[in-house]
């Protein structure tokens, strides 16, 4: 099959969004069904990525490359073991989100769905882009729909939250942009050829002193996205104010872009700087784990509790990323998926509660289990997945992360393991206060248990949780070769630098550029 399957997956949602524009905004159900169909079709297409993925190849697959604007700006996409599942996660969650918003969003349904679909394209684009320009375009473009999703359909402090979200993210990404420019010019100076191809940059070896600055720029951008302590304060605000769908996508996928960025860019491009900052970043991640957990413990709002729990969980993922060994990185990727599922599910669940009660304050609830037993079961499973209970997905990610961290540094692992206590603490306490105990609020008596639609969108998540918890092999195997190659990239250059002359600015053992590309660029110049 010669379909450009990856482009299809990436742009299908966008096409769907365009389609929706032509539907009258009063025909809400048609809009919903259409967007759901688009999301599901996208998901089905993305499944073919999974099935046709060859886990022996470390390099990106399904590569599509086309000239775009010249000067190294190319349309260049591909999927490797690191990004594969993040794409699948996105495509899986999107139909779920649309279903979850079925009745939750009553105002401006059309716009909501359009933004959601645009957002999906943006997110997938970030994960597939192999050209830095393209990557940055998607990275930024994705902000816009998110900005609207929070700002238009958000809670009372939505404007503050959405502006904070955008400005925070942009602060990082703009500096990253400067760093990209710097790499761009370095590469040009080194080879005389314009390129923004990530894989060309992998071959570029920079002086460690320069790496430091570039790494800082990249790392800041990703750290804000993750969010790493102390750049986390946008997260609770954004989460609390966002509508359910927004929170889900934000927690489940957007945060992963930060860790993905570290894996894809910051680590392999600047290995020496990584080594230099490793202690700092590791400590920040560790602080994030404990700090996030403690803050989650005392939140009065369910959503902000889950938000802070994200800080904690993402801290663990970051710590694992910096452990720089196979186990930890595979664990980190796995945990990214887990966190996507479990935190996403928790937000869905909070959304279900909110739809019934119009409050998110923990103190307004109590004894909901009695009224909604099925809901309670789903809630319990999702919560336990987040807690990292064996048999569910969270455990595998957590144990691999902790194992990898342990391998790298015992002390960090010992402190990091506190996450499993803290997570149990805040989540169970929250569960107790919301779901258990006597019913104190009369409103709760009127709560209806889950309807079919709600069950339909929760079930896939729960199935995934069990599947990933019981039989993770299909996931882990697909990552192996890419992760190994990533680590080779990080480690090989480490060796190089211990021997190299430190006086040079940059350079390099560049993988040869094909003559074809050089000719192309000459043509560019001629025009």
């Amino acid at each position, binding site marked *: 099959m010669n379909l450009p399957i990856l482009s299809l997956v990436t742009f299908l949602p966008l096409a769907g969004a365009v389609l929706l524009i032509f539907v009258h905004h009063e025909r809400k159900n048609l809009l919903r069904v259409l967007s759901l169909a688009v999301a599901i079709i996208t998901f089905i297409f993305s499944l073919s990525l999974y099935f046709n993925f060859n886990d022996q190849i470390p390099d990106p697959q399904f590569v599509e490359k086309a000239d*775009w*604007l*010249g000067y190294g700006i190319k349309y260049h996409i591909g999927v490797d073991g690191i990004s594969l599942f993040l794409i699948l996660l996105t495509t899986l969650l999107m139909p779920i989100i649309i279903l979850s918003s079925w009745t939750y969003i009553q105002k*401006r349904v059309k*716009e909501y769905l359009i933004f959601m679909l645009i957002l999906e394209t943006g997110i997938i684009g970030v994960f597939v882009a192999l050209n830095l*320009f393209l990557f*940055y*375009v*998607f990275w*930024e*473009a994705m*902000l*816009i729909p998110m*900005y*609207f999703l929070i*700002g*238009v359909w*958000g809670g009372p402090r*939505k*404007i503050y939250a*959405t*502006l904070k979200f*955008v*400005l925070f993210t*942009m*602060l990082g990404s*703009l*500096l990253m*942009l*400067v760093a990209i*420019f*710097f790499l*761009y*010019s370095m590469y*040009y*100076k080194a080879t005389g050829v314009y390129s923004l191809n990530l894989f060309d940059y992998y071959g570029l070896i920079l002086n460690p002193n320069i790496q430091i600055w570039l790494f800082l720029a990249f790392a800041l951008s990703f750290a804000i996205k993750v969010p790493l302590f102390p750049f986390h304060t946008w997260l609770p605000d954004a989460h609390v104010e966002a509508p359910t769908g927004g929170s889900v996508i934000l927690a489940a996928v957007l945060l992963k872009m930060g860790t993905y960025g570290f894996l894809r860019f910051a680590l392999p491009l600047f290995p020496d700087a990584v080594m230099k900052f490793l202690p700092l970043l590791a400590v920040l991640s560790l602080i994030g784990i404990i700090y996030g957990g403690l803050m989650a413990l005392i939140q009065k709002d369910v959503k902000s509790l889950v938000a802070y729990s994200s800080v904690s969980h993402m801290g663990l993922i970051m710590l694992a990323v910096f452990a720089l060994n196979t186990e930890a990185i595979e664990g980190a990727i796995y945990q990214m998926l887990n966190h996507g599922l479990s935190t996403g599910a928790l937000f869905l669940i909070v959304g279900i509660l909110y739809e019934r009660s119009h409050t998110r304050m923990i103190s307004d609830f109590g004894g909901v289990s009695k009224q909604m037993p099925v809901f309670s079961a789903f809630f319990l499973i999702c919560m336990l997945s987040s807690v990292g209970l064996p048999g569910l997905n969270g455990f595998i990610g957590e144990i691999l992360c902790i194992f990898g961290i342990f391998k790298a540094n015992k002390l960090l692992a010992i402190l990091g393991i506190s996450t499993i206590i803290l997570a149990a603490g805040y989540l169970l306490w929250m569960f107790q206060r919301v779901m258990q105990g006597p019913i104190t609020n009369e409103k709760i008596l009127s709560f209806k248990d889950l309807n079919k639609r709600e069950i339909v969108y929760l079930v896939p998540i729960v199935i995934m949780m069990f599947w990933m918890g019981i039989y993770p092999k299909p996931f882990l195997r697909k990552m192996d070769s890419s992760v190994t190659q990533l680590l080779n990239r990080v480690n090989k250059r480490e060796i190089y630098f211990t021997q190299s002359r430190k006086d040079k600015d940059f350079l390099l053992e560049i993988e040869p550029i094909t003559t074809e590309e050089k000719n192309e660029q000459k043509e560019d110049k001629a*025009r």
Partner: protein
Amino acid sequence: MNNFFALSPILVVVLGALLVLLLDVFLKKENKNYLAYISLIFLVICAFVCIRFWNKNYSYFNGNLFLDNLALFFIFILVLATGFVILLSMKYITFQDVNYGEFYALLLLALSGVAIMLSSIDLLIIFLGLEVLSICSYALAGLKRKDEKSSEAAIKYFLLGSFATAFLVYGLALLYGSSHSTSISSIINFFITESELSIMALIGLALVIIGFGFKIAVVPFHMWTPDVYQGAPTPITAFFSVVPKAVGFIVFLRLFVPYWKNALNTQAIFWILWVICVLTMVVGNLVALRQTNLKRILAYSSIAHAGYLLIAVLAQDNSSLVFYLTVYLFMNIGAFAAVIALSRKGKEYLELEDYAGVGFKYPWIGVTFSIFLLSLAGFPPTGGFLAKFYVFSTAVREGLLPLVIIGVLASLISVFYYLRIIVYMYMREPAREIEIAVENPALFLVLFFCLYGVIQLGIYPRNILVLINQAVSSFF
């Protein structure tokens, strides 16, 4: 090639102006729209001429008039801008009581000044062209005669503009005194050698920069901008925000490209421009944060954009400068078009408060305005992003890293106020109902064109880049 036809772009425009003036006498008030059509026809002819003359390098008056590709490209672009402004004005002038035939005539005359400036490399001629443009601008700014703000804008523009002109003239005198010529090439030739008069020439150059700096509104010569933009009739503001700025930068281009290349000591001027650039970006964006009037916000935003454009000048990257200007034309006129759209007879909605809820009430205006704002803020996949991308990336390559860092931080600030407008449009409940006149096909045409431009330039501007490369590589 010496060819009388080289005059044709200017002549066409001036003839158009004269015809409009003539017909104005005979036309009834209700039929003043014909004047707009006539103007547009002449603009189309002018644009057509520009296309036909591409790559022909016609010149006349011993090379004083020289239609190289750069000139043609920008005449075309600014003809387009003027055309947009005329389309925007058609309803506006009847609504806002500016309904004079001279309106179009002045616009066309201003455009002729622009064409004169663009097609010459003699500072005297450029100066005269600038005066044509300025005098028309002064008058245009004050055209809402019953509006105190409009006349205030006119007087401020006029007094400060003349003040700046005086500096420009003095600078010209000093340059002339040292190089005995007003032609840019001889002036640059003078800078190649060191002499006693070098310092005088340098000061002369600085004063000329200041004179043009006023036109392109760079800090600290920008003070007039917000007031004039606010007071002037809105289509005219759109005109101000694009046309003089573009022309000013093209003059800079013609002046500095050989200057950087040939002059002995370019450091002093370089650092002055560096400081101006930083100040412009920072002050423009910071003050914009405080504004609540849409036109003022856009005014400060245009100041800030002048800063980004200066980066391109400093990076000596002509094509990115030209590309930025092209994109800037579409997004800025588009933004003003959206502002103009929110008006009805006798009333303009210009305060942020008025914009609450507009996005959903008038979806097309909201969407297009948002896209223009996002483009101004530099979000992909709009032209604004690509323009910044080109400018900043070449600047980094040229070693202007600090400038670029300041630039991106400044644009971060800018994101706030651009998004704030969107916040009002989409995320606030309307505090008071607003009523606008929706039948305005000309305006929507402009919105559509600008939207198309912004998107096309953001996603696939290859063809235009090719043209731009031809334009900047061929001049001189």
